[in-house]
């Protein structure tokens, strides 16, 4: 295993980017996200800029861990939203439009709905619903990122974010 890691490092590839099936993967491969940038598809350029700013405000870097920006969470969520059901797309499109207007009065004013106490059903107003959804999505996209795993691997011996994956049945 150590020899394999050395080989990967000679190839300039991070072990986290390798296929996990050591018994089957004779030729090392890497995920596209590790070496290239996803192209925006869902948001327009101004919307994407605001969305990225929102992400970094909600989930900034903390205590040596990457924030949403470092984890490329905005780019990933843009891709995810491009494939999401219509009601989710509408929620985010309208939400980011409202955020663009509201942030003129300052970020805190734009995010005041997030100070409402938790309820199981979540907020009913669309903008508050958008903010809550975006907060959770940015958080998950950040802690499930390659950048997060690499940062955590230097702090803990536990295998962060590794799970038992069901292969396609056929």
């Amino acid at each position, binding site marked *: 295993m150590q020899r394999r890691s050395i080989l990967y490092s000679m190839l300039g590839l991070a072990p986290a980017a390798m296929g996990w099936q050591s018994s089957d993967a004779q030729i090392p491969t890497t*995920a596209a*996200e590790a070496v290239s940038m996803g192209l925006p598809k869902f948001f327009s350029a101004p919307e994407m800029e605001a969305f990225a700013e929102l992400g970094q405000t909600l*989930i900034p870097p*903390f205590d040596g861990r990457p924030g949403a920006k470092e984890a490329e969470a905005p780019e990933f969520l843009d891709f995810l939203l491009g494939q999401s059901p219509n009601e989710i797309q509408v929620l985010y499109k309208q939400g980011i439009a409202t955020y663009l207007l509201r942030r003129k009065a300052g970020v805190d004013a734009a995010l005041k709905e997030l100070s409402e106490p*938790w309820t*199981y059903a979540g907020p009913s107003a669309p903008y508050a619903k958008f903010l809550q959804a975006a*907060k959770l999505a940015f958080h998950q996209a950040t802690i499930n990122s*390659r950048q997060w795993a690499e940062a955590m691997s230097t702090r803990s011996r536990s295998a962060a974010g*590794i799970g038992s994956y069901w292969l396609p049945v056929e």
Partner: protein
Amino acid sequence: MKTEYDVLIIGSGASGGMAAHTLTRLGAKCIMLDAGPMIDPDKQRVLRPVADLPYRGFGKPGRFPHVTQANEFSANMWADEKQNPYTYDPGNPYYWVRIRLVGGKTLAWGRASWRLSDYEFKCKDHDGFGDNWPIAYKDLVPFYDRVEPLFRVSGRKEGFEQIPDGVLLPDESRDSLCVQRFLASCKKHEVPTTKQRRSTGTLASSLNLLLPDAIATGNLTLVPNAVVRELSRDKATGKVTGAHFVDRVSKREFHVKAKAVVLGASCLESTRILLNSKLANSSGVLGHYLFDQFYVKNVVQAIVPEARGGNAPRNLMGGGGYIPRFRNLKSKSKDFIRGYAYDFGSGNTPGPQYYSSYGEKLWKQMADSQGAGFSLTTMGEVLPRFESFVRINRMKTDAWGIPVLHIQQKYTANEFAMAKDSMNTAEELCKDAGFEILAKHWEMVPPGESIHELGTCRMGSDPKTSVLNQFNQTHDHKNLFVVDGSSFVSGGAQNPTLTILALTLRASEYLIEQAKKNNL
């Protein structure tokens, strides 16, 4: 000329697997049809970092609108909702969660293994609602006693009448300090507690515990990818003669013949097959009395204050337990009948949704409560009602051209009152244990989401009001048995799999006895 088998078993999960295990060992030549492919769980699963998954663990959007349990790691295990559609009224969503693989839902079940008691079997005698089962707890004891060792159920004997003790591997594990505090609070409030009772082992599935023994007898022929369209019947005798099925991959049509048929295709699939076959419904109740167990997930999310800031002393956090039903046993609640149970656990980290903050403040709050959580989930009894039912929707078919189910189930005032009571009680128990309440609610998950769907093909002594007799044999067709959760008359708050296994064992032995007497 193809073989005519002694018994055709449809389904390979808990009930189908148990039927095969029993019938083949008693010498019956059986054929088993399962709608899904055969898998090897060891080769089917691999370790993967979440960051290497295409959707970072979110899963492909819209793939499983009704399977909240599905994440990107497990997505390939669940039945495809587009190939296997169903319908419901838009105002009453039903979450039908299915696995179509050999082994069925036993590949992924929670393994909680509780016995029912006469609070369920004789529920009408106790509170006047609904109907009694045609059997009593004592009738099922010998079968529970044989199923528990097979599934290696561990737990602690407590002498509670509502969850009778069984043949258990003793659980001698010690409780953490926070769990001890919670148990003391429960004792003060006269709320019973115990360890979980769970099937143990690396895999506790039909695939490794039941089917290999059945195969080893040489009496079982297993046909995967066989989607049953309907059962066939001899109009002269009224007996079923086999099943028409479709190969899942090629869509070629087949027919298989058998002297008897055992349906164990899962609660709603078995009823769907009967409804599509126009069989076993002289009573008119086939499809009716659908119920499940309602869940209130994380009804209370609390924090153990001494564990804040990563300062938990050794042995403070970790572990959990179970609170069996305690309402309406010896005394009566004014707001509802029947009762609910809780699972509780400690050491979790509350998610970001619970905090009214963002940015650095959110990170600090989450870091402060890391590993300091204590939470409970409510599992409540749902009353079986005629108005909750499934029927065939002839306007829609699945990927094999088979008409699908329309499902209608609503929770009623009794379940709502129970859910609210469970929130208030959990809050009181946590506060008296010295825990801080972070969040509480009493919103039930939609019907079906607990994956404990029951009824629609219920047992009973009267053929006019039930589909099956006390041995899971249809009143209308002597050689047709239904052995899964559809046979339940009531369900309590206990997870149903252990009872499904015990009922199937009993029904299968009865089938052989009757076959020997030429009574089928």
